[in-house]
């Protein structure tokens, strides 16, 4: 329907398909919400507790999304995740007393292979290899790593040592919690 003026023969099935897609979107949209739904409880357990983080505390409630609802959570950034086999995600922000912030996004993919593909897309062959999870790449102000079926991204707002140390510390804690999860 490139012109928005569909021909008569195809307009009815296309309209019906569009209605179906709309219903599909709405049904998935209800899954995008504040944390707390049963399906995402397991994912929330991967967030490092404040007791392990020393100077970093949660800034607001974590947010979660399942399936297509990822588009509402991270907008067009969701395309690649969905394409590679996305299941669910949790995002959270931590801050310290100096007002610095670190964003943590954990994406549960359908398989380790899915996680490997999305890691390749996000990190490429760039960055400094660091020992976090199965494979990790540290950039100026962010870290991407994968562990089993999970792709994890942590990002700060500056390139200072304190921020990067916080990112690495948090990343390792998440990797340990993935290891320990059932």
């Amino acid at each position, binding site marked *: *329907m*490139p*012109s*928005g003026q569909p021909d008569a023969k195809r307009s009815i099935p*296309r309209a019906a*398909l*569009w209605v179906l*897609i*709309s219903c599909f*979107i*709405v049904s998935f*949209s209800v899954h995008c919400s504040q944390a707390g739904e049963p399906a995402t409880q397991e994912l929330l357990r991967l967030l490092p507790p404040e007791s392990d983080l020393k100077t970093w505390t949660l*800034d*607001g409630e974590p947010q979660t999304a399942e399936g297509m609802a990822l*588009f*509402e959570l*991270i*907008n*067009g*950034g*969701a*395309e*690649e995740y*969905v*394409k590679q086999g996305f299941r669910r995600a949790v995002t959270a*922000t931590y*801050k310290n007393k100096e*007002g610095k*912030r670190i*964003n943590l996004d954990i994406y549960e993919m359908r398989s380790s292979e899915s996680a490997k593909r999305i890691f390749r897309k*996000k990190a490429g062959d*760039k960055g400094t290899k660091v020992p976090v999870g199965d494979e990790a790449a540290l*950039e*100026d*102000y*962010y870290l991407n790593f994968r562990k089993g079926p999970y792709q994890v*991204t942590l*990002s*700060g*707002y500056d390139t200072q040592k304190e921020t990067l140390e916080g990112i690495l510390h948090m990343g390792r804690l998440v990797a340990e919690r993935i290891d320990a999860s059932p």
Partner: protein
Amino acid sequence: MITRRSFLKKAACVTGGALLSSGSLSVLAQPSAQSPPATGTRLDLVAVKGKDPFVAAQTAIEELGGIEAFVKRGDRVGLLVNSPFKNVGASVNPDVVLAVLEKCLEAGAKEIRYLKDPHRGYWERSPKSGALATVIKSLKYESGDHAKVEIPAGVALKEASVAKDLFECDVFINVSVTKHHDGVRYSGALKNMMGLCPFSTNSFFHWGTLRLGWYGDLDHLNQCIADLNLVRKPNLCLSDATTFITENGPYGPGKLGAFETVVASINPVSQDAFCCRFLGLQPEEVLMIPKAARHGLGSMNLSRLKIKTLSV
């Protein structure tokens, strides 16, 4: 020229389920009476390079004629800022927004409405947020109400659900971030308009022709963006090209470009035609730009524009 009051009268029909008449919307796409004329000695576009985004943004507005050319005492200002993305370089630097806010209040704006809410913690990213706390507190945020509007001149998009707040302001300011976008390659002023639409409308942009994939039909997506811009042309556009993602857009994180530049202009087409070059793209390579130019929303021919670049 449609006014806020005349729109509200018409929007009353919308709440009743009826669509606005095509006549009213064709008027909506015209420049506001408060837009400065594009001819004469007035500049079309200003690019200010500087270490401080706040100073650069205020200088850009001054060079374009001063905020008084756009905002009158007692006006309601609608501010559409690309700021829902938490990663650095994926949202407008809050200092740029604070600079605009301060200018609007100086001009005597009665109310400033944030048309798309920022991400949590957005203002705290600015070192100026403490000193300008009263400015931030004075803001009103999105009402969440949408109106279905017709777009008679739209090619792919004939109607859209758009934030009602857009039509309740006297002055509309579009503040975008220059950045990479995985689908349409570049995101700026034209693309920012999608922030006014709910997910259901934006889904039509992506899936309206039923081709598989979020970016399955890029021509349709770009056409829808151009068409959406017919709904209301901004009185003033600013783009933050200070620090922005050059990959993994629109969400990031990714490698950053740092041109330390804020750009201001009076139409989104010229704005994007100028800013896409920060990403190494020509206007013709970003499909929504020529499509919006064909709608008469501005010129993408930079050689025919009055442009001033300066450093502060």
